[in-house]
């Protein structure tokens, strides 16, 4: 491992904050293939971390381990002080605190937009229907599509669907939001509308972990960038450091290929 201390560099302001996600030497195998190799990182409250790397580098696997959509076999992951274990209640609790946005949106096609958003608040948080509806409409307003509340996902464009997916995750009032390549399945003209929503979310102080290929977003919004390759963390740094003065050869090679 070429860059073992993934916890730095960190500004003093960040260092004083609460730890939101802690990963300590996380390892995961698919059969004999090792997808994650001793991944360690700490993400602080209100921090925006962008994970970059070539495809197949383990970015998505890592982010999916954090709310246990994938199970890591070795190491430790803790979210907001609660360690992930096999206890079902523990997992359900963490999942309801961690919002996730998928590449393929994964909206529920048989439910209207408003029902997509209110389902979990009503059944997991036990919110009365009227409160859940009010919250959902406020969130739709926030992501810029209040007029689509009673449509079905199939009637919306890709960008609108992804914004509904963000609203759906936010309706659970999570402490952390995970984004797994949120713009990769979108047409170019729709990417901006989703990124704008994500920027607004970052400005509001949400803790975010974003796997993406949008370099502009990473440069502008990220507090830190983590670069992964072949299942391990290669380099961690501020966007300025990462884009202008990377230390690792592999990072330089990656940047030369995409920029």
């Amino acid at each position, binding site marked *: 491992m070429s860059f073992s201390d993934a916890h730095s560099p960190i500004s003093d302001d960040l260092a004083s904050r609460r730890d939101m996600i802690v990963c300590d030497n996380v390892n995961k195998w698919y059969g004999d293939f090792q997808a994650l190799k001793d991944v360690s990182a700490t993400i602080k409250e209100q921090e925006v971390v962008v994970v970059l790397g070539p495809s197949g580098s383990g970015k998505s696997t890592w982010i999916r381990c954090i709310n246990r*959509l994938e199970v890591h076999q070795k190491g430790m992951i803790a979210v907001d002080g609660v360690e992930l274990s096999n206890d079902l209640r523990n997992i359900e609790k963490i*999942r309801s605190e*961690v919002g996730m946005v998928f590449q393929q949106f994964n909206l529920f096609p*048989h439910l209207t937009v408003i029902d997509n958003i209110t389902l*979990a608040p009503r*059944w*997991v948080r036990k919110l009365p229907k009227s409160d859940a509806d009010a919250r959902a409409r406020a969130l739709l307003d926030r992501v810029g599509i209040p007029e689509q509340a009673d449509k*079905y996902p199939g*009637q919306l464009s890709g960008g609108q669907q992804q914004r509904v997916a963000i609203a759906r*995750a936010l309706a659970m009032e999570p402490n952390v939001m995970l984004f797994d390549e949120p713009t990769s399945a979108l047409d170019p003209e729709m990417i901006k509308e989703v990124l704008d929503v994500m920027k607004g979310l970052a400005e509001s102080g949400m803790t975010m972990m974003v796997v993406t290929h949008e370099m502009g977003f990473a440069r502008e919004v990220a507090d830190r960038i983590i670069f992964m390759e072949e299942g391990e963390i290669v380099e961690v740094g501020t966007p300025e450091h990462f884009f202008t003065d990377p230390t690792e050869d592999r990072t330089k090679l990656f940047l030369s290929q995409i920029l």
Partner: protein
Amino acid sequence: MSEESGVALESATEDDIDDQPMLKPEEPSLPPGEWVQKNLFSSVFNSVLTILTIVVMAFAVRGLLNYIFSEERVWSAPATNARLILTFAYPESQYARVWVTVGLLAVLAGTSIGLWAQWAGVSAKKLCFWSMNLGSGILLAIVLTQPGVHRDAAGEVLRDADSAVLRKSFATAMSDRLVWWIVGLAFIGAGLLAWNWLGEMRRRTIRVPSSALIFGSLGLIILSLWIVNYGHYAFSDGEFIAISGRTVASTTKQPWTVMWLILVGSFFLGRRISQSQRAVSVKGLMNLAWLLSPFIIYWVILRDPSIDYSHVWTTDLPIFLAFAIGGGAILWLLSYPGIGEAGRLAGVGLVVVAIFQFAAAFTGWYPMLQKARISFVVLALVGLAASNFSGERSQRVRFVGVWVVLMALLHYFATVMNSPATVDVVSENFTGGLTVTLFVTALTLMISFPLGVVLALGRTSSLPIFRIMSTAYIESIRGVPLITILFFFSNILPLFLPDGMDIAEFAAIILGYSLFSAAYLAENVRGGLQAIRRGQYEAADALGLTSPQRTSFIVLPQALRISIPPLVGQVIGTFKETSLIAIIGGFDLLRIGNQVIPAQTQFLGIKRENLLIVAAMYWLITFAISKYSMRLERRLGVGER
């Protein structure tokens, strides 16, 4: 996915169609000559095929027509026995009960159509086509049907020396059918006239509401009872009585007219409600009414149980109160939001108690009323699900309220089913014919559907014990012919039951059908479950839904939608398989046509007519189910994703 796909979803209403600002220009239709050339005679091979097909079709249609209108047919056999076919030997003195049943169904059907139907209506263009097609069909039948026979004054068929039937000449036959010529030509003429008078724009924009068409044609059929005195004798008190003037038409025209009025009246009522604020709650109520209707009709209306009220006061009511209050209290506690792990443990404890009760029944440890045992099972199942209904006080009150209503229904029907019937019955089963066919189908589907869904979930479960049990059940049931299962349930099962436990043959048959049907339904639902993408599970998990919530809100609704076509196939299959009742000794539709009517002295050996009528009845109902499912698929947007 494009914006237009939404039209297939619920938002499509009649308004959408009316409001179209501009019509797409009509495809210029080819002149008939060119159309024929393009579609039927485009090449030598196609021409040969076309001519061959027309010849074969003409012979087939001619054969069928000659069969139906042959002088040898005795159509009075099924016509006279209409009541036997529909309700078997239900006593005539109690026939008002049958009309109450039909009336109840008319109310339910009319209200439901008014509440739910979103019919776009039929365009005037289509109606013109239908009219012309009907007219041409009549003309074709007139020409194709062979000429009638000569009869002597007594009505006997005249034969020549070789005892071959003497037929009239073609010209005489055609002039005999003058009335039908006029009818056929009138339909064609009306279609053509309307077509030209309306013009292209109005032909396509004018729409006749489907409800008006359906209720109108039903009304016309009923009106015909008043005009044409269908000349068949009535079948009364088990005897074929030739009382002239007492025809099927004359004895049923009044009740049928009342039924039609009820149907149309409740349709308008449903329409009214659908526009009011209460639509949602009334729809829920209607669903409940449909679910309860087979039980109410069969055990309450048709059987008219004589309830022993002293038993009700001393036994039935106390047991009900014990479960309603005691069970309600348990559920109130279990739905307490902060109960946590203790709630789950208590739920499991209830299941253990419920299973123990049944073990005790079979080994005879202690006596207990059957319905108390069943109530324990229901309590255990509801108790397991109680944590999903925890929340505010009002929500818990509603949960317990539903429980009390459920118990009231369960204990009411248990009491009713255990009470003897007051209606005189000829055989053990007091209904037969179409009635029993429909009841067995309805009850079988109501039992096997939930069972099939549970089996499908079990077979796809990650818990090995459920998976193995479900797979074993499905595979062993599918490996046995249905008739074997029916024989087992009607003849052998009663011998295995412990002392004091009894099962009516009717119930045993339904149980057999349900267990069989459930295995097939399970496989259909499993197909739907496997079509759900992984992302749907992940999205539900990521939101923190528990696995029962994920199954009931996300996975099952989508899986069932996907499975509609095979599920409808299974429903149709179950409906037709009820004809096996004839083999195990019941009097269903088929047995009456095939054995009962041909055994009557007046119609000895008359089978073919009955079978044709019975087949037509099966086909009509099956076709209706099939049509409804197509509509349902379109409305739910199957295949849109």
